[in-house]
């Protein structure tokens, strides 16, 4: 018999949320450990990945629930959010509407699960010429205490930082 649970580690459930086509699945794809195919997203509506973050004092396994992207907030399966320690909000920096979806998602989650730690990633920052979010807006969000950053699935910019920050916050 082999026990696979290690002692110096902690697991946390993290939801990855965002509007349709913001690229959250591809954003995390290269940085996570995954055994399930993306068809789970369209069939079951959720796909589980794992991101292990090494903090100074412990190892945090972030169990990522990549919930199928829907622009219609009401159709979000709230049962998938149950028990989350935190969440990753993803918006598409080239489409303003997706940021609004992300904001309303945050409100919905706050209403249902209380104030959970979260990070906001504005994806596709490699498409600078189509960028639709002003830096000032991002700054405003940060002033409100948000951890917000632009990211790129192509370059990986922002992704590791976001997981690290989130891991540090949920593990305490």
């Amino acid at each position, binding site marked *: 018999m*082999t026990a*696979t*649970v290690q002692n110096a580690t902690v697991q946390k459930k993290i939801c990855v949320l965002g509007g349709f086509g913001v690229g959250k699945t591809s954003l995390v794809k290269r940085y996570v450990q995954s055994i399930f195919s993306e068809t789970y997203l369209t069939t*079951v509506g959720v796909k589980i990945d794992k991101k292990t973050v090494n903090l100074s004092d412990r190892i945090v396994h972030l*169990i990522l629930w990549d919930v199928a992207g829907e622009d219609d907030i009401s159709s979000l399966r709230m049962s998938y959010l149950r*028990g989350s*320690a935190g969440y990753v909000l993803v918006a598409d920096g080239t489409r303003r509407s997706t940021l609004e979806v992300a904001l309303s998602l945050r409100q919905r989650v706050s209403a249902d699960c209380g104030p959970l730690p979260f990070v906001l990633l504005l994806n596709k920052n490699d498409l600078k010429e189509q960028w639709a979010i002003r830096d000032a807006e991002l700054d405003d969000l940060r002033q409100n205490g948000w951890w917000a950053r632009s990211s790129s699935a192509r370059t990986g910019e922002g992704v590791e930082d976001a997981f690290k920050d989130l891991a540090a916050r949920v593990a305490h």
Partner: protein
Amino acid sequence: MSTSAATLEWLFRPPPSDAGIDRKALAGLLVELARNVEPEFCVQSTGVPPVDPRLEQLRTLLLGREIEIMSRLSELVEDPERLAVAVGQVLPTAIAHASSDARLGQVLAPALERATQSSIRSDPRTLVNILHPLIVPAIRKSIGEAIDKTFQSLNESLKHSLTWRGLRWRCEAWRTGTPFAEVVLKHTLVYQVEHIFLIHRHTGLLISHVAAEDAASQDPQLVSSMLIAIQDFVRDSFSGVEQQGLDTLRLGELRLWSEPGPFATLVAVIRGNPPEELHETLRSALSQIHAERHQALESFDGDSSAFADVEAHLTECAALRQRARQPARASFPWLVAVIGLVLLGLAGAAGWRWWQNERIDAAEQRRWAGAIARLRTEPGIVITEAARQGGAFVVSGLRDPLAIEPETVLREAGIDTNRLVLRWAPYEGLDPEFVLKRLKTSLEPPPGVTLAVEDGRVVATGSAPARWLERARLAARLLPAGSPGLDLNGVENTDEAATAKLLQATKSLRETIQSREIHFDSNESLPAAGQDAILDQLARELKELASLASTMRVPARVTLTGHSDDVGRGTLNLSLSLARSGAVLALLKKRGVDPDLLSVRGAGPLEPLNAEGSVTARSANRRVSFTVGTEEQQ
């Protein structure tokens, strides 16, 4: 200030309503205070008056509020009604505060038990209503599992009840006194628990995972979360009850059994065919874990290091298996095998012989049935009984003498005619073929007539004399009822035809003859020149007429009428006309015409062809004409 011992005495003696004040000490204290203010003040402590209103005033001044509160409190405490109201207001809060104290439960338990008992006694329905939502799903599940278990054992019992192994297990059941179904299950359910996951229900995080030695799987943390996600998915999609979820998943020979607990779900991945009791084993492991680690499970936040001890329970579950029995090669029972083979050989030989006999018998039976069936199709044969009696084939029935010889048919069908016993009673069949045969024999149709069967009737065609037709009609009328019937419409009556032909011929001959005329020169009694050819022709025609008339058996008569023109005297003309017809008669007689056929008359000029009186008309009028009289006209 004067005082007396009596007043002090009173002061020392406390009033019944005012307990607890040491009045003597108080008085002493007051005297001491007075002495401090005025050193000359000297008074015996006994000199305090019994009722000193000032003292009371002082007391009120100092303790007035407390006295008031005290009196309110004492009223409250002493009045049970008011006390109950007051306690009731704080009781929930008090219990909430005390709930962390284990003693509260202990203290309340007996009272609650008694209360529950009396509640059930007074109206059990209340409790039933309360427990219904909890108990019913549990009962349903339990019954479901019991039924599954029964079915499983029934299935297995049926599957194995008639095999050699089954017999052995029956022996074992009989020997050990256990039900057969249980023995079967024990031997047939081969399974192995490969993985056990203990998953936190709320977060889907893995609490603990144990795998069997040779089991492979993906990252258990991911798997456990996905399992919970799928359960959520099913519950959301098909609006299941919160407490229920997927309890069984099956993929080929892998099964996933999920046992939900209040805080954690136990998922077992099982390869093979597990018995239903395994549910119970898993459930009891889960309840034990819940009992031991209730608090830790409830507050689980992703740190599973505290659950190291849980592994022991899971390991126990993961060790569960039932291996397939390997056939014991070493102790192969040779003797049994040899005896078995010999018996098998004997049985085989006997079986072969029996089978051969059966086969021959069956072939003969088939041939016999075929022959009888063929015989039945033959017209004019009615089989009333066909059976094999001993070695003989017995056939009895009715047979039309015109029918085929039954023996021939049976011989052709391969039946040994030596073993045949045939009993036929004669009868007249109404099959069209037989009717035809019979009619042919009895009617002897003339060469021009053909008799044949057409649409179930006997139809005669061709031509026949009237006499034969008459006979045939009579025969047709005499045919028995229900027989095919004889159709004679297609037969031409040759006699009638001939008569008609003769009549026609006679008619045309008469017309020809009547159109003939023999012409004469004026005042001559012999025909004019050139009339010979007409006379020759006429003679031939008259002879033909005579022959026709004789054939038709009718008398024929040809009248020769002599005519004259109207020149000259009447009597002369009359005799001339008669002489002319006589001359023609003579000339015809000379040409071979039977004179009996002919008669003569003289018409003189009275029947002229043309009454114009011209030369041409007169010439035409000088003639002999012919009138043919037959029976028809008489």
